[in-house]
């Protein structure tokens, strides 16, 4: 009888915790602010009431005063929409209010060999809803044979330099350990594409000198901590082994020498999970959550969330809040019933915006109840 009571208690507790994770929206509202987007990837506010949204299919859509406009941004460079490739991230220059310069990352096909593609970053001036003076500032070297694992996330550091994530190209994972290519690297360049003099590798060709960190797989989230002192990076693992890392220049994050995951086929990629000289994540996920975006909450509407890290994920799809402290990383699943989420962003009014994935996608606003 006692065992039966314990069993009943176990069932009740299990059921309660399941309800908690699935409907953890008791202290916020979720409202759709735009819908009908085609594979949206990222967004940026160019004013308090104007949002630019990149679509992987190649357009930059405009949301003005809460309405998705029919017209798209003009003169956007052509990108390759295939596999995981397409128009990807968009960020503003730190001095955007004065110079109106924006930065775009996207995958691009080789000019003569259509089987090859690479990651490209351009800067351009925004004049009304038209891009002008489009100028390439980075192209990942070399081209890859599959349109996959581009990384493509952009982040400006406090010193004005730009971080670019460049994924391992799927078929070239071992090259993430070599410093003669951009596979599985985080790149650091100046806003004009030149290499900062204080980059960790000062010798070698331009490829090596542009490298900031190595040993990554497919990094799709980058954010600064609230005090801007640390850079957090999130990357997809294979089957298991998604990682949250703290970036430090010249660090090697180990892929594929060490990993918490296995290959999609079930094969062992490496039996090693840690090794001297290779950095450990501050958190990892097994099974995978497929992290697609990340931001640090900087608003005032949710005082308890200030400084916390928010991660959008695609498997099974959801939004997670991470509180990072010296004691470790606490994780709370806030949303897991909206399907695959592609990104999470701060809104100037202190709310959070999340982007759903694929066709007929939506942008949701998370605001306090």
């Amino acid at each position, binding site marked *: 009888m006692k065992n039966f009571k314990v069993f009943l208690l176990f069932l009740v507790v299990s059921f309660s915790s399941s309800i908690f994770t699935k409907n953890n929206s008791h202290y916020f509202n979720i409202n759709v602010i735009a819908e009908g987007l085609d594979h949206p990837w990222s967004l940026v506010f160019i004013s308090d009431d104007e949002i630019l949204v990149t679509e992987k299919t190649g357009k930059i859509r405009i949301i003005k005063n809460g309405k998705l406009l029919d017209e798209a941004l003009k003169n956007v460079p052509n990108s390759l929409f*295939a*596999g995981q490739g397409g128009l990807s991230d968009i960020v503003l220059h730190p001095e955007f209010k004065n110079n109106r310069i924006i930065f775009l990352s996207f995958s691009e096909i080789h000019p003569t060999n259509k*089987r090859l593609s690479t990651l490209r970053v351009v800067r351009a001036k925004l004049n009304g809803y038209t891009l002008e003076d489009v100028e390439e500032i980075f192209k990942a070297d070399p081209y890859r*044979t*599959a*349109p*996959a694992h581009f990384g493509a996330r952009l982040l400006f550091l406090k010193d004005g330099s730009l971080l670019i994530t460049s994924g391992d190209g*799927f*078929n070239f994972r*071992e090259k993430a*350990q070599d410093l003669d290519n951009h596979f599985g690297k985080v790149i650091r360049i100046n806003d004009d594409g030149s290499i900062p003099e204080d980059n960790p590798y000062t010798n070698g060709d331009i490829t090596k000198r542009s490298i900031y960190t190595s040993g990554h797989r497919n990094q799709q989230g980058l954010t600064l901590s609230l005090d801007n002192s640390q850079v957090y990076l999130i990357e997809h693992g294979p089957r298991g082994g998604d990682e949250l890392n703290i970036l430090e220049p010249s660090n090697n994050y180990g892929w594929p*020498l060490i990993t918490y995951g*296995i*290959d*999609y*086929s*079930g*094969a*062992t*990629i*490496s*039996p*090693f999970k840690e*090794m001297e000289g290779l950095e450990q994540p501050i958190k990892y996920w097994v099974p995978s959550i497929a992290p697609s975006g990340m931001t640090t909450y900087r608003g005032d509407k949710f005082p308890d969330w200030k400084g916390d890290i928010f991660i959008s994920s695609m498997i099974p799809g959801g939004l997670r809040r991470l509180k990072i402290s010296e004691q470790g990383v606490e994780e709370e699943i806030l949303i897991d019933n909206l399907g695959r989420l592609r990104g999470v962003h701060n809104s100037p009014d202190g709310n959070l915006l999340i982007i759903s994935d694929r066709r007929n996608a939506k942008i949701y606003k998370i605001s306090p109840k």
Partner: protein
Amino acid sequence: MIKRISIFLGIAFIVSVLIIAQTTLSNFLWLIQADMPVTLSLIITKLFEDVLRMLVIVFPIIFIVNLIFFLVAMMVSKYTSLDKKRAYALSGGLGLFLISVGIPILAGGIYGLTGARSVLGKITFTVIGLFGGFLFGRHLDRAKLETS
């Protein structure tokens, strides 16, 4: 007939295990080249684990490809003077070669079986296919001798 089916399934199993071993060993070979502390017992343990995990994916692929290509070999050897061992070996090799190049084509350039990424990997896949086909053809030759 039952014996022939059993032999066919057995050969699909052997070929699958060899393909899995090639994938695992190619991964470990790179780790050794990268000075990771790989030991023989570690390789054996992981190989065993990989076989258990990967058979569910690899075996159906090998089964279907061998079935198609061995049926073609059966027709070819029936209507030509090509002996069974050669016919089945060639079709087995061709089947595995097509797996090594066909999966990436179907998957948008992505190599699901990473052991097939290099030229050497594709050659190894082909040789494993040749071996499987040869074994099956030899069995058929023997069975024919026994019945005659």
